[in-house]
């Protein structure tokens, strides 16, 4: 039930343009004025992170659906490679989704490649050569997830990111 009866607050400053209110301690009071940092200690955080990490297989299933959508968007984009093709935005949106999820489940390298993919979409010029760059990104993401390469992929992962950056820089 909502009860938002405001507690009177004395501003630290109030003039004709600006009002500055002191910090609000509603949240702190709700937990009995205990330090939140003590309630959410290392052990609690570690357990919660472990639970996230245990969902890696679930993630690989979800991401399979996103990869399929990415492939469809790429096909639809390249069938009619012209400015205004809305499938570019679709592709970009899915790349952002992959970037946001992959690293959360330990696939940091896949997130990095997905980031490179969606930022490349921002300056996409609808040429065959640039479509090939999109293709290489998609293939890299698929391979990383297929091989379950977690973390930054070590020296091989770093080499991959350098190659992607070199490829992308040709079109700046």
């Amino acid at each position, binding site marked *: 039930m*909502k009860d938002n009866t405001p507690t009177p607050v004395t501003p630290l400053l109030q003039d004709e343009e600006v009002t*500055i209110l002191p*910090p609000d301690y509603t949240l*702190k009071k*709700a937990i009995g004025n205990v330090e*939140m940092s003590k309630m959410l200690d290392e052990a609690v955080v570690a357990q919660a*992170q*472990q639970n996230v990490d245990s969902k890696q297989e679930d993630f690989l299933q979800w991401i399979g659906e996103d990869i399929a959508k990415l492939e469809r968007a790429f096909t639809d984009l390249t069938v009619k490679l012209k400015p205004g093709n809305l499938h570019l935005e679709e592709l970009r949106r899915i790349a952002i989704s992959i970037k946001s999820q*992959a690293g959360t489940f330990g696939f940091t390298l896949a997130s990095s490649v997905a980031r490179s993919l969606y930022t490349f979409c921002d300056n996409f010029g609808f040429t065959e050569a640039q479509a090939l760059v999109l293709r290489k990104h998609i293939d890299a993401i698929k391979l990383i997830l297929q091989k379950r390469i977690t973390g930054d992929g070590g020296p091989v992962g770093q080499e991959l990111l350098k190659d992607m950056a070199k490829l992308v820089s040709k079109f700046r």
Partner: protein
Amino acid sequence: MKKSTSAPGRAALLNIKILVLDNDPRMLGLVQGILSDLGFKHVFTGSDGKEGLSILDKEQVHLIITDWTMQPMDGIDFVKRVRSLPDAFYRVIPIILLTARAEEEDVIAARDAGVTEFIAKPFTVKRLVDRIIAVVDNPRNFVLAPNFRGHDRRRRDDNSQGGIEKRKRRKA
């Protein structure tokens, strides 16, 4: 993994109500699961800003965690609407933006819209917890100005420019 026995009574976390918004049900489920593992059992969820406002109309929440890219109302529009609500309780509510959009201009836009804390996806549990601890244990002043409504954007406790007193002296 052993649960921490030294953490102060975490039962108090049951007093906290959190609103989480994300258009991806998988992400929503993930964040809700993490919060539950941390001890926050009262979590309301929605898939965009409009749903968020509707929940705020009915429920009293203490903290908001929202994505950016949602439709029909995205996270930034939602934040601006919350900061303009007539309800003084919600105007100053801490809002954490959890988003894949993490370029410098995105962070600036989010900060200027009134977001309290910013987390880039992919994220770790620790990063989320650090932001929750920040808003609970170290709440900041709240600024109401013609072109900005939100928690003090300055992070450093630095009064070298004179702070509020300088403004008071100027106006006097």
